């Protein structure tokens, strides 16, 4: 499930970008230290494999709906977690840019949700623990299903936290969790079975590949544990920061922009026309069922600052002005585009009189 730009607030987007960026730099560093240049083409081609395999639809037994393959665990098995994370990050970037999956700001969230949890949590802590250098069919099955399910559950939970933390969607945390986790449990079981089938297939056909990959790949050594511990610390810090940010500043950037500008948006109002309009506005501002949203929340500095921007005042005057302004803005944009269009066509015609008839 790709997190989308449309649902995230700048604070969440930026935090997750920072986290994903840090993770990529860390993985890149470890990969470099590993000095295995075979992995350079291997990562690219396996990324393309996951990409291609995800485009093939297959039927989920007993349901008739279709599913696709989860990449994080397969890639971790074949490449080790560091290279797998970088590969997933590159797949997500291509999807964001070409298929409008997610978007640019949500990329950080997606790298964490879809890359970090399977590669750095589920693979070392579950798959490796279950498979533990002794490959058997049963272990591959158990390890794949368990690690894919856990990776997806964590990823889905992260999507919920990011969405709720951003506050753009109205879905309450509890309802959203109850919606997301069971769906992803089902998806996870299917993806886990498929992952296990694909891994077993490779293992049967060419055992040396898997043996080499799992035995050689960096496992659950001390460095991974240390890394996970420091990561947990960072996560807790981030979570604390985010929840503070989310509760006291309904819209983080909004708040910081206003602080930076030293005034709230309404400061523009009290002049001539606008002041007159403002008076009309105040007089008509009462509607029977009107419920000013922010009044439900505990009052605070941030709330007071954000409220005017978040909720345009309710009255006929502003909504007419708003509609007129909207129409004008759209008209202006259209006008600019028409002017530019004719100008570029003129120029093209002048440069090459035969180009356009």
């Amino acid at each position, binding site marked *: 499930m790709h997190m989308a730009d449309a649902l995230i607030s700048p604070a969440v987007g930026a935090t997750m970008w920072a986290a994903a960026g840090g993770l990529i730099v860390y993985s890149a560093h470890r990969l470099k230290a590993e000095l295995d240049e075979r992995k350079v083409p291997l990562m*690219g081609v396996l990324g393309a494999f996951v990409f291609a395999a995800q485009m093939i639809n297959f039927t989920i037994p007993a349901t008739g709906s279709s599913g696709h393959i989860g990449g994080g665990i397969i890639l971790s098995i074949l490449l080790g977690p560091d290279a797998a994370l970088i590969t997933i990050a590159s797949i997500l970037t291509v999807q964001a840019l070409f298929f409008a999956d997610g978007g640019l700001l949500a990329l950080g969230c997606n790298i964490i949700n879809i890359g970090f949890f399977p590669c750095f949590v589920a693979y070392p802590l579950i798959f490796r623990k279950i498979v533990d250098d002794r490959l058997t069919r049963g272990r591959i099955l158990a390890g794949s299903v368990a690690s894919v399910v856990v990776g997806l559950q964590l990823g889905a939970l992260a999507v919920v936290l990011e969405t709720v933390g951003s506050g753009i969607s109205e879905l309450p945390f509890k309802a959203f969790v109850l919606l997301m986790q069971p769906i992803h449990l089902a998806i996870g079981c299917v993806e886990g079975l498929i992952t296990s089938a694909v891994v077993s297939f490779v293992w049967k056909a*060419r055992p*040396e590949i898997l043996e080499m990959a799992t035995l050689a790949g960096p496992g659950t050594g001390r460095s991974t544990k240390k890394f996970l511990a420091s990561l947990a610390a960072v996560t807790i810090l981030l979570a604390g920061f985010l929840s503070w940010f989310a509760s006291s500043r309904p819209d983080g950037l909004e708040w910081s922009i206003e602080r930076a500008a030293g005034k709230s948006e309404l400061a523009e109002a009290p002049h001539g026309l606008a002041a007159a309009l403002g008076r009309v506005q105040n007089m008509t501002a009462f509607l029977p069922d009107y419920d000013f949203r922010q009044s439900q929340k505990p009052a605070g500095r941030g709330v007071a600052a954000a409220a005017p921007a978040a909720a345009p005042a309710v009255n006929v005057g502003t909504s007419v002005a708003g509609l007129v302004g909207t129409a004008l803005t759209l008209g202006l944009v259209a006008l600019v585009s028409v002017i530019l269009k004719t100008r570029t066509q003129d120029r093209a015609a002048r440069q090459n009189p035969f180009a356009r008839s």
Partner: protein
Amino acid sequence: MSHHIVEVKDLAYTYPGGTRALRGVSFRIVHGESVGIVGANGAGKSTLLRHLNGTVEPAQGSVRVGDFPITRKTLHQVRRTVGMVFQDPDDQLFMPTVYEDVAFGPLNLGLPTAEIENRVMQSLDTVGAAHLRDRPPYRLSGGEKRAVAIATVLSMTPDILVLDEPTSNLDPKARRQLIELLRSFRHTKIIASHDLDMILDLCERTIVIHEGRITADGPTARIFNDQNLLAESHLEKPLRMQACPICGPR
């Protein structure tokens, strides 16, 4: 000019899966020779070629290029000397554009930018692909891909050219152009192929491989006339040397 000699002694190789691809191969190729390597599918041709520039380490036996046996220390020098054109151009053209692909080798040699530019354009000109320089490889036709793949090797100025199935997937005209191009090269050439007519055109000497062993090594014309040998190695006489079944009886 002893450094253009290729000498293979008792070479054997088994893939990690257990396939014994080569089982004791020996030959010696001297400067300026053009040698064809023929054999059925899976005979071990590609595996043999991979040993010639050290991309695969022999399990047994040795490979000598020029004055050096191939070892870790001489690998760098060997790869400058031996230019390898792979069977599938998609494996060889991994960079985003033709230009960058041809520049990949010279860049790794650490040449100055002007020299790189020079070599890239010269190599592309030689294979007639200068107009493709900014195209991504996935938008090239099979023949164009092959030409560019050869250019990527030429830009390293090798002394010995090793080509794996250079005419596969080419239409008759592209094939003919490629043969003429290869004929114009003064390099030592080692060409593995099923296209016996092309071997007949380009190589005065042929080595036949069957199931990882050399079954014949000698002048191309003599080998292609040995009906029994060809049949044993799952090969057929080049069409050109067969009596024409359509126009023949007339």
